[in-house]
């Protein structure tokens, strides 16, 4: 470390908030040039995520999904950021990124199979609220928050070492920045110039803890300074701002210039999870204020003002996906569940002897339960 006489660091981008359109869909500065088709795709992904989210809520209330972490209000961040990736890139999501999964190519059916742990669940009955699929280079999220951050860095470094032209992206919440994993991941990424993009969804709350109680830093983006990682703060409810920022970050990473920390300022409009009661800790008026800023309406207004969506188009998109997704739900609800044996599989590449013994115990116990006429589930 040298004696520095001139501060070479500007915190501007980490403290101000970048946005492309305002809360009523009016441009506030130069607009990125994005093909209409992509703009409509963006919109559609957000709508699909919103519909799927509300279904998962419903299915949880029906007892068919163990737990769901609502995405409502945060669609722009996950859709906008993920659209900046190429198919070959790797994604390390958290539990609140339905939009990202869709953008990567996961279908509603695959997501629902997962959530309902049907026989087709690609993760074979794994934990709740986590999604992933090798086909789409999505690594299933761990529930302990921030755990995935060092993984994203490691995968990025691995790609770099192997000479693969791959970028990784990872999502995490404001609360997650307090964890050691965040610290380690940002630090390693900075030191090794890993081609990784960190997308923080600062949705203002970590369950009941407001971001002011999470950190005394003025923003999340500014934390990048501690790691030599550029931090950029964007309006996370402005899908255009998120997309253009992510695109730049992904390009930067691909060019070998290292990681970026993007703070997408957004808001969780729903409860933390289906097990939460937000009225205990935050005011209705705060929620209402953020309802007005929600990303889908806002982007729709923009697209309509620009004439990219004509009258009725938005409703059409909504209705199309509403009925498609409903059909999928019906189909998935009908699938059989996973068989009991899965609970003893995939611990090792081959079952160890204790698991072989325990498989016998499991089978015998199932038989006995039948004999006894006892329902344990």
């Amino acid at each position, binding site marked *: 470390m040298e004696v520095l006489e001139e501060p070479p660091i500007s915190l501007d981008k980490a403290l101000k908030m970048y946005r492309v359109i305002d809360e009523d869909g009016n441009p506030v500065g130069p607009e990125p040039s994005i093909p209409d088709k992509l703009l409509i795709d963006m919109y559609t992904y957000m709508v699909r995520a919103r519909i799927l989210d509300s279904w998962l809520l419903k299915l949880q209330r029906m007892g068919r999904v*163990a*737990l769901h972490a609502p995405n409502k209000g945060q669609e722009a961040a996950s859709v906008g950021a993920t659209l900046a990736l190429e198919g070959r890139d790797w994604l390390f999501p958290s539990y609140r990124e339905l939009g990202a999964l869709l953008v990567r190519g996961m279908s509603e059916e695959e997501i629902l199979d997962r959530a309902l*742990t049907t026989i087709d669940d690609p993760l074979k*009955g*794994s*934990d*709740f609220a986590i999604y992933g699929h090798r086909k789409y280079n999505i690594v299933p999220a*761990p*529930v*302990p*928050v921030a755990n995935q951050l060092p993984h994203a860095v490691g995968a990025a470094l691995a790609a770099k070492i192997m000479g693969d032209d791959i970028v990784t992206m990872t999502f995490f919440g404001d*609360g*997650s920045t*307090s*964890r*050691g*994993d965040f610290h380690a991941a940002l630090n390693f990424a900075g030191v090794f110039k890993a081609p990784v993009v960190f997308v923080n969804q600062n949705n203002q709350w*970590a*369950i*009941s*803890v407001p971001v002011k*109680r*999470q*950190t005394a830093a003025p923003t999340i983006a500014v934390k990048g300074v501690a790691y030599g990682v550029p931090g950029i703060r964007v309006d996370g409810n402005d899908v255009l701002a998120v997309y253009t920022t992510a695109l730049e970050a992904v390009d930067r990473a691909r060019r070998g210039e290292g990681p970026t920390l993007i703070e997408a300022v957004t808001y969780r409009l729903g409860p933390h999870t289906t*097990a*939460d009661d937000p009225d*205990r*800790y935050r005011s209705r008026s705060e929620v209402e204020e953020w309802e007005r800023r929600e990303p889908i309406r806002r982007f729709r207004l923009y697209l309509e003002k620009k004439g990219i969506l004509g009258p009725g188009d938005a409703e059409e998109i909504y209705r199309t996906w509403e009925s498609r997704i409903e059909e999928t739900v019906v189909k998935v609800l009908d699938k059989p*569940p*996973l068989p*009991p044996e*899965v*609970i*003893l599989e995939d*611990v090792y590449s081959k079952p*160890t002897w*204790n*698991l072989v013994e*325990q498989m016998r*115990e*499991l089978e*015998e*116990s*199932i038989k*006995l*339960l039948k004999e*006894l006429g*006892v329902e*344990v*589930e």
Partner: protein
Amino acid sequence: MPVMNMVQALNQALREEMRRDKRVVVLGEDVGRRGGVFLVTEGLIDEFGEDRVIDTPLSEMGIIGVAIGMALYGLRPVAEIQFIDFVYEAFDQIVSNMAKIRYRSGGMYSVPMVLRSPCCGGIRGGMHHSQSPESYFIHTAGLITVMPSTPYDAKGLLKASIRSEDPVVFLEPKSIYRTIKEDVPDRDYTVPLGRARLVREGDDVTVVTWGAMVYQALEAAKLAEEKHGWSIEVLDLRTLFPFDKDAIVESLEKTERLVIVHEAPKTLGPGAEIGAYIAENHIELLRGPIARVAGFDTPFPLVHEKLYMPNIARIYMALRKVMEY
């Protein structure tokens, strides 16, 4: 005497201890306004204020590390880990400091604190909201590990833990947070650490268990009695370390058969120590093999958790094994 569930009993224990002793503070994620995700700390912030009921940033390492510092200084912190499955980030602080500061300082400093946390399965919590990691704590010299199975014990054991001069890991089986209700005295009492509770008397087999598994063991005992007339004794260990070896031995002197039941995975689960202890020190008491009924040696599954956890069938199978040897 009011009827309470375990959440209410724990809440009352905290409240009474905080009233009794200004040094008792509560900290953790969402323990304040939210009252904890299971409402164990509900209302405490209103009575004791933000200084003593502290909503922390999302860092288990920070919660335990800071609680250790508080305890060093002279407070009696009760640190909540929201689910015990998230405790591992704090493992370095627990193993290297919470457990070792007394030893490291030649007895000059100590860390009288409680790490309390909901544990165990049975609520469809999946891989990271269901774990029973008590073995990690039991193996760590310097810690006391406790798990109540009733509201009465929950209150009395938590109070004893808060008053303990040694650091205590206090595990709360969340599946019975609200399902078991009983009379709980509205007044101050403690349940001593290190002593088991005889839940059911019997002559033929000793079942050693704790937490929610007490109730599974009782069901299996009933079944065995109905089917075969076997008389099953059930011991609730309550303190997992230092465990009440005398109670186990006393029971074995009568039954000569041992079954251990726990949710923690079998390999090096707490049952291993109990089994080995008996095989080492009291093998003459055993008529035949011991049996362990435990969580399978896998991560905790989201699906089929009732098959993963010891259930009436699996415990009954073990009883049959030791009786029919």
